[in-house]
């Protein structure tokens, strides 16, 4: 029969408990979930990408409202629990009592606040949850100063995030080197150097005496009476289990709530899980053991045998560019031996600690690819005597195998852990592959591997590659070209987050291996820069393919084609006369009507381009951008003006859209269609954006294709007014500009990010307004006729620089 289960705290551990319960036996419990935060379970490991702006809250939600509703979980979010009465078996919330048969306490941890004067001033923020993160984002600002107290994992992630947001950051750390619990001094030094390179100031052996300020934090006072000015103070010195409710309820509490191996507290009907518990003298802060606990607890609640055991955990830091790994115990001691490998030029440091022929600890900085292999040796207590000499070079050097980069992964045994967060081992992934999972998404869905913090994504892909061989194509790890090691997505993200605003900044900071890129990467980088920094970055014609540089399409015989713009496909006799005159004057051999309702003059000589443009300009004609990765054409039908079926002024809307969008650069070309009724004479439903007018308004659909792929558009949304139709279209174009990979047409991009995501962003009115504003800002630079500009300033470059035919003949 169904029992009542109350859970206090919606964190990652309790989230996993609920998942396991509803998957195993959804009828066993009626679940009520309290959470003091006004939201459900999200992936807290990902707060630092949110802080530095690489991700948003929406990206890191684990369970949304729908999910809770679907699984019948009663949510009491934003409500504090006042007390637990274990006698009556009742939980007292702010808004009323809830009786329980079984209770789970998952209150997590609270940040440790160092007891100094000024600790409660406004402007002093801890770093634990989304509200803290948002508070930091709000307080952050270009050029403002932040002091982070605490140089451990959390403090450094906060510092890096704030620095990426343009703040001047100082880290104050009590100990002699950073992350002293996870790193030795040498690795701590390299970490410090890398952080300092990003402009973060590090103060070690520095103790905070007070936070001073009048009404809000203004400076941090150190022991020794030095003051560090600060607009924002982040307190990240550590956490302590949140045990107040348990203590008040009379449960056994030491540092944390004491539990047995079934996660049961001193009251048999009350369980605890996560960062609030203490087991066997241990506290827990990393996600892997929490998930183990969650599984054990779910089994205990379902009367299945299971027991929690403490395992070694490995640490990775999620700060881009700081690649570190540590596992096991690496303190020096009697009978312990070190193996050290350094490569100063590459900033690589590796140290293994060996005791009695077994690996007991590993610290690595700069190259952590073999981390999991070492971690496995530590966990298994493998005898390493035989491979001692080559051990530090990693698995690639063991067993005679040479330098195949995949052999490290191939060498891992099935029980080797791949995904630390979810405790997924290689065998589970190879089983999933045997059952038909052939790509990363399928592995994520079936095993949860790489579904939490994502640092193991590369490993999972390597397992796929080793297992499937040629049948698996590495999808994400593909660098743009041989000039760099980064993917398009990485480069886009880093240009935004590191605020790289020039090509030189990109080459330098992202480690380009060539002087200034090549014909593959440079056009992409040029686009990313101008899309993200329209005011700061100037479009570089020399990074564009000939068509975009010359504002005309090169033909196979080296001549060009010229297509003037006809707004919405509408023209008039004087424009047509000007086109005819130009065709005569420049001996244009072919005049063709295009599929986008324009007129194409084919076969114009390169030298004649400025002159023919000047002539067309005089008749009021401008570039039709028939050559650009940008807005091409808006194809329309005649709409209400002439057609007896027309429901709206489709031509008028087409003209307005074209006038708003023209001149903008996009990842690939963008074509629009506007049809005045569902008969769809403008063939709008195979365009990048297609609008169908109906009696009730406008159906906006996107992501169609009519090229090598043919695909019908998908409905983005329905709107009632013309202005909304324009707004939604602009917002979509800007979202595409900000996020898509260079040379992905809109339909390819939408397939990657999902229509749902696009719809959500566009439906969010604040986001829509932001997108429109960002687009308008960019258009303040780019909404102009490049032909006129070239006629005025660059005409000479279309002519030969010199004519030596005469001289040579002399």
């Amino acid at each position: 029969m169904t029992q009542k289960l109350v859970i206090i705290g919606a964190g990652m551990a309790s989230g996993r408990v609920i998942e396991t319960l509803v998957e195993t036996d959804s009828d066993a419990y009626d679940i009520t979930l309290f959470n003091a935060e006004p939201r459900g379970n999200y992936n807290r490991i990902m707060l630092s990408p949110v802080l530095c702006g690489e991700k948003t809250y929406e990206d890191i939600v684990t369970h949304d409202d729908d999910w809770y509703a679907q699984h019948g979980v009663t949510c009491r979010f934003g409500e504090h629990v006042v007390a637990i009465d274990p006698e009556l078996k009742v939980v007292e919330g702010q808004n009323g009592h809830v009786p329980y048969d079984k209770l789970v306490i998952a209150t997590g941890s609270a940040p440790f606040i160092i007891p100094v004067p000024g600790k409660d001033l406004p402007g002093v923020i801890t770093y634990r949850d989304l509200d803290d993160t948002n508070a930091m984002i709000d307080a952050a600002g270009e050029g403002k100063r932040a002091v982070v107290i605490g140089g451990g994992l959390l403090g450094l992630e906060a510092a890096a995030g704030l620095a990426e947001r343009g703040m001047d950051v100082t880290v104050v750390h009590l100990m002699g080197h950073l992350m002293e619990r996870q790193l030795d001094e040498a690795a701590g030094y390299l970490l410090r150097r890398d952080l300092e390179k990003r402009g973060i100031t590090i103060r070690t052996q520095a103790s905070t005496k007070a936070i001073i300020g009048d009404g809000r934090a203004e400076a941090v006072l150190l022991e020794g009476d030095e003051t560090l000015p600060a607009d924002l103070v982040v307190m990240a010195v550590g956490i302590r289990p949140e045990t107040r409710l348990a203590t008040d309820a009379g449960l056994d509490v030491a540092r944390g709530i004491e539990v047995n191996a079934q996660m049961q507290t001193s009251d048999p009907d009350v369980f605890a899980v996560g960062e609030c518990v203490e087991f066997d003298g241990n506290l827990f802060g990393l996600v892997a053991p929490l998930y183990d606990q969650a599984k054990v607890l779910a089994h205990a609640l379902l009367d299945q045998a299971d027991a929690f055991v403490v395992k070694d955990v490995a640490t990775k830091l999620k700060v881009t560019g700081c690649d570190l790994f540590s596992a096991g115990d690496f303190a020096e001691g009697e009978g312990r031996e070190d193996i050290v490998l350094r490569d100063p030029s590459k900033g690589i440091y590796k140290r293994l600690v060996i005791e009695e022929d077994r690996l007991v600890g590993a610290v690595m900085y700069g190259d952590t690819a073999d981390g999991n292999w070492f971690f496995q040796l530590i966990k298994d207590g493998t005898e390493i005597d035989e491979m001692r000499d080559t051990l530090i070079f990693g698995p690639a050097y063991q067993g005679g195998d040479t330098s195949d980069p995949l052999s490290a992964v191939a060498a891992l045994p099935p029980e080797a852990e791949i995904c630390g967060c979810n405790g997924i081992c290689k065998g589970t992934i190879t089983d999933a592959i045997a059952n038909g999972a052939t790509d990363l998404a399928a592995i994520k869905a079936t095993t949860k591997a790489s579904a939490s913090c994502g640092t193991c994504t590369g490993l999972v892909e390597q397992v796929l590659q080793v297992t499937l061989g040629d049948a698996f194509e590495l999808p994400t790890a593909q660098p743009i070209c041989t000039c760099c090691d980064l993917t398009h997505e990485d480069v886009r993200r880093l240009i935004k987050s590191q605020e790289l605003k020039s090509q030189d900044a990109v080459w330098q900071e992202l480690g380009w291996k060539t002087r200034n890129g090549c014909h593959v990467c440079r056009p992409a980088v040029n686009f990313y820069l101008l899309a993200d920094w329209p005011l700061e970055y100037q479009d570089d014609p020399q990074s564009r393919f000939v068509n975009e540089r010359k504002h005309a399409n090169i033909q196979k015989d080296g001549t060009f084609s010229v297509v003037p713009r006809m707004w919405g496909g509408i023209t008039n006799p004087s424009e047509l006369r000007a086109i005819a005159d130009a065709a005569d004057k420049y001996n244009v051999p072919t005049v063709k009507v295009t599929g986008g309702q324009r007129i194409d003059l084919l076969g114009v000589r390169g030298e004649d381009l400025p002159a023919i443009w000047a002539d067309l300009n005089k008749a009021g004609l401008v570039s039709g951008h028939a050559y650009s990765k940008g807005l091409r054409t808006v194809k329309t039908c005649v709409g209400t003006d002439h057609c007896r079926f027309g429901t709206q002024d489709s031509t008028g809307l087409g003209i307005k859209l074209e006038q708003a969008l023209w001149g903008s650069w996009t990842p690939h070309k963008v074509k629009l269609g506007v049809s005045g009724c569902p008969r769809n004479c403008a063939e709008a439903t195979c365009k990048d954006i297609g609008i169908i007018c109906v009696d009730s308004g406008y159906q906006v659909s996107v992501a169609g294709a009519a090229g090598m792929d043919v695909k019908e558009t998908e409905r983005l949304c329905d709107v009632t007014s013309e202005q909304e139709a324009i707004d939604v279209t602009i917002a979509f174009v800007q979202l595409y500009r900000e996020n898509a990979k260079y040379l992905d047409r809109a339909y390819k991009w939408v397939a990657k990010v999902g229509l749902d995501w696009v719809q959500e962003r566009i439906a969010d009115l604040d986001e829509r307004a932001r997108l429109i504003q960002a687009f308008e800002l960019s258009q303040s630079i780019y909404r102009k006729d490049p032909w006129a500009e070239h006629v005025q300033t660059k005409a000479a470059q279309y002519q030969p620089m010199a004519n030596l035919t005469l001289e040579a003949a002399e």
Partner: protein
Amino acid sequence: MNWIDIGHIDDIPLRGARKIKTALGCVALFRTSETEVFAASDTCPHKGGPLSEGIIHGQSITCPLHNWVFDLNTGQANGEDGQIATYPVRIEGDRILIDGAKLVAQSAA
């Protein structure tokens, strides 16, 4: 040697190219950096693409038609069986000089 002054270095945009007409056909001048200019045939040996319209990177030029990449030092196509003629160029102050004798001599050869 017959050095002919063909123009100011800033007549060619940085990482851009211009052509000159010669008795041998069009020769392209590639400005690979602030003070570095190469001269080579403008015509791609593959299918005649105009190399002066390509993208210049490092000391290489990518043909705009099918992306053959030529090393401007040697004229050799990267990984393809093809080569373009290269010509001596000199920068004197701001001026670009090309060896006119070479252009004629080669045509005679």
